[in-house]
């Protein structure tokens, strides 16, 4: 009897052992097939490379088993359709797009695969509107209006009248700015510009009235190099400090400019990738603004204008030293 029971348990034990091994083996098989992510970056610019490196590095350190394939977006000879066909053939769980070119193309061409975009300045609302699925996450480069004006007020605490020239596509920015400045007791002296030809006259009109000029990204203001030159020179000659956007324009001659940290944009994007992968199936949307905004101060220009930037702000800022030459 004892022998029979022993045999019974041996058989059962073997059975459970085999079953357990089978379960373990199955589990082992799942773990051995990691999620696959394709990162499609728009070409040429160092900022895309910097963001991409940061995404790969962040994902690599937080989830080493994740498979990431980097591809440069090429819509050239074979066309966009063929490009995305090749990308989706390998069955990625998620596509990361870096830059407007690859993002725009992916949203129009890829179905049923979640997309996380990054390093896209503007127009993502239009991208979403044109998308068949709403399974899009992303980090834009658009620094919120309130944050720009808050930094400006911290850097120039004495300002009471802020000038602003904007094109017709920036009416919503104007509304946000007007609401924020009125809450802060700042008077926004704004002129809507019909065409870039009106900018010299409009700037001359407000330049004597304002303590500073706020120059957020706006196609009308930033597009034409001659206009940018005019605004920078005219404001400098009239001792009106400019708060602009992008490190490069601070190097060109604005005393202050805000910009994003592309490494942090990469980290922020990587977190969104993990968030989307963890969520599983079902479309969803999460568009984020940059969480880290840097203030650049052109040392020579700001000291020439006699700006007294509070020590607390200056400590956090990045100083650019451009004195001579082009």
């Amino acid at each position: 009897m004892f022998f029979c029971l022993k045999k019974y348990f041996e058989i059962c034990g073997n059975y459970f052992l085999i079953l357990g091994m089978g379960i373990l083996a199955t589990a082992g098989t799942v773990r051995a097939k990691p999620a696959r992510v394709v990162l499609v970056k728009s070409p040429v610019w160092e900022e895309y490379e910097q963001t991409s490196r940061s995404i790969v590095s962040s994902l690599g350190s937080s989830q080493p088993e994740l498979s990431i394939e980097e591809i440069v977006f090429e819509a050239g000879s074979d066309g966009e359709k063929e490009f995305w066909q090749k990308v989706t053939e390998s069955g990625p769980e998620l596509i990361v797009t870096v830059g407007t070119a690859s993002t725009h193309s992916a949203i129009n061409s890829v179905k049923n695969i979640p997309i996380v975009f990054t390093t896209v300045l503007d127009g993502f609302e239009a991208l979403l509107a044109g998308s068949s699925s709403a399974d899009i996450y992303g980090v834009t480069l658009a620094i919120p209006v309130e944050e720009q004006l808050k930094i400006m007020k911290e850097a120039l605490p004495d300002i009471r009248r802020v000038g602003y020239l904007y094109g017709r596509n920036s009416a919503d920015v104007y509304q946000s700015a007007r609401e924020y400045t009125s809450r802060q007791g700042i008077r926004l002296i704004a002129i809507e510009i019909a065409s870039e030809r009106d900018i010299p006259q409009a700037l001359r009109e407000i330049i004597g009235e304002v303590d500073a000029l706020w120059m957020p990204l706006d196609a009308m203001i930033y597009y034409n190099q001659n206009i940018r030159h005019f605004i920078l020179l005219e404001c400098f000659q009239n001792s009106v400090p400019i708060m602009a956007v992008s490190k490069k324009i601070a190097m060109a001659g604005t005393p202050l400019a805000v910009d994003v940290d592309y490494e942090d944009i990469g980290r922020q994007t990587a977190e969104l990738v993990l968030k989307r992968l963890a969520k599983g199936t079902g479309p969803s949307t999460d568009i984020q603004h940059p969480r880290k905004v840097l203030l650049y101060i052109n040392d020579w220009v700001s000291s020439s204008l006699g700006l007294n930037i509070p020590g607390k702000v200056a400590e956090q800022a990045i100083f650019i030293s451009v004195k001579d030459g082009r």
Partner: protein
Amino acid sequence: MRVTILKKWMTGFASVMLMIPFITLRAAPPEPEFTEELIFQPIETVITAGRTEQSIERAPATIAVISSEEIKASGALSIPELLRQVPGLDVMTVSSSHSEVNARGLNQLLSNKLLVLVDGRSTYFDFFGGVIWQALPIVMDQIDRIEVVRSPSSALYGANAFSGVINIITKTPRQIQGGRLKVQGGENSTLYSSFVQGNRKGDTGYRVALGTRRMNSFSDPDTKFEDVALGNFYLDHRFDNEAKLSMEAGLIRGTIAQNVRLEDVKFEATTSYTKMNLDYGSVTLQAFWNRGDETSDPFFPPGDDVDILYNTFDLEAQHKVDLGLTHTFIYGTTYRFNTIESSLIDTEHKQNLIAGYFQDEYRPVPEVSLLAGARVDRHPLVGVNFSPRGSMVYAPTPSHTFRLSVGRAFRNPSFTDSYIHTSIPAPPGVPFGVQMVGEPDLDSEKITTYELGFTYFPRHFFRWEIDVFAYKFSDYIALGPPEFAGSQLVQSYVNLGSATAYGFELTADLIPAPWLKFSANYSFQDLDNKYTVHEQQSPPKNKANFKSFLSLPSGLSASFSASFVGKTRWEIPTPEGEYMPIDTDSHTRCDARLAYNPGKKNLELFVAAFNLFNSRHLEYPLGEKVGRRATAGMSLSF
């Protein structure tokens, strides 16, 4: 022949105006696509120490701008010296301290057809209808820029903007932000000093400027031609973020020499002004009071001493209305009250002048801007003058701009024209002296101008411009030939005649490197004289200017300019009251300045030379030969 040209111009203008509706049918183009790639692109550095670049804008009028940087680089001690480089302007150095300025062939002694504004205040001297440059109570270091419009602008500025407008714009307290001291002295006992200080604290800003200027004759360095002290004070305050009130006052006092007819006359002059501006939203109000008190030895010895006392009270109100994004309407009114007392005129006179004006600018599409304006002025002697103006600017691409404009302007008779009453004693050997009398029944001088301009501005470091003009003026006011009235020879002001003129100006600016700037221009003008007594007076046909500016990181900077002025012919008054044609030769003059900043950015040492190569020449037959004025100096900013 020239009338035919004018007709062709008018026909061409009418054709273009007829095309406007077709141009405006195009829809406004969409804003350019704006992606992050635009902000990734490298941007050339615009603002650095020692940069020579200036902002150049596309302006609807034929306008030239002299910036504060160019003023500093020139080493000039007076405003006319700066204006010599402007295309289309005629600048004539009569003596070491006396210059006359006008546009497009209309220059003369006691030039009276150009409106000069300082921060919007007319410095027009109603006594003779011109500006006395030596009597402007401002120093060079306080000037931010000088805008020169060399076309009739009566539609906006009224009488006296006949040949153009020179608007001198001074620095705001915020632009000064500290102080600047400058001392410059050298040949011909030249001594110039200035001190400018300004700042802004919260809603209040102030500026103070003090200066002295002494310049002696080129031919006799011991003869004082200008020795003045001046000062001005400015204060502004903002109320409730909406209104801005500013008040200022200035005074200049001292000796100035002017060649008024036959020779240099020294005046003891005191000129002052008080001004108030109120800006409230789109409404601007301006009130000012100009006062001048000048005395001199007799113009025509052994006659009486000369004294001139004048007051001008001026009120102006303007309202700007934005009728949508592409439509701007401005209208305004002015009132001017003048009082004159002088031994040169028959009796004390008072004058009330009123005017109303409007200007409408419409931009149907971004490429096209249409401007129409008109002004009605009422003068107690000549009645009502109507000055219309229309222009079209068409910019098919960001780098190409075409301008077309037609305007009419006028100049009212001055107090001298209407009321002069003085005697020129008989010169030795001549039996009769001349009695000069004014004519109250004169018409206004009138001018109609047609202009076509093209600007090519492909990049911020290169700009090329051509302006072609034709004008016709009539009823030119001047002293006519002397006539006997009984036993007395009398010479009186009359409307002499008319003239037609055409010409063009070519300008090129090049900035090959941030530290190097070249600028050159050439002006041609041909005037058909039917307006002087002998119909022989003729302005220079050809003028050319070149200037270069170099600024090195080592602290050295240098500027060099050269001006060529062609041959001119003047009808010069004689002691007998007649006119005699006299030529002046063509001449070239070079100015230069070399400056060194010895490490400390606040200090600059410099040497400057006016007429560097001492080319002795006459620019006006009764003036003095222009000589060199080499100076050295320092400026300190703090």
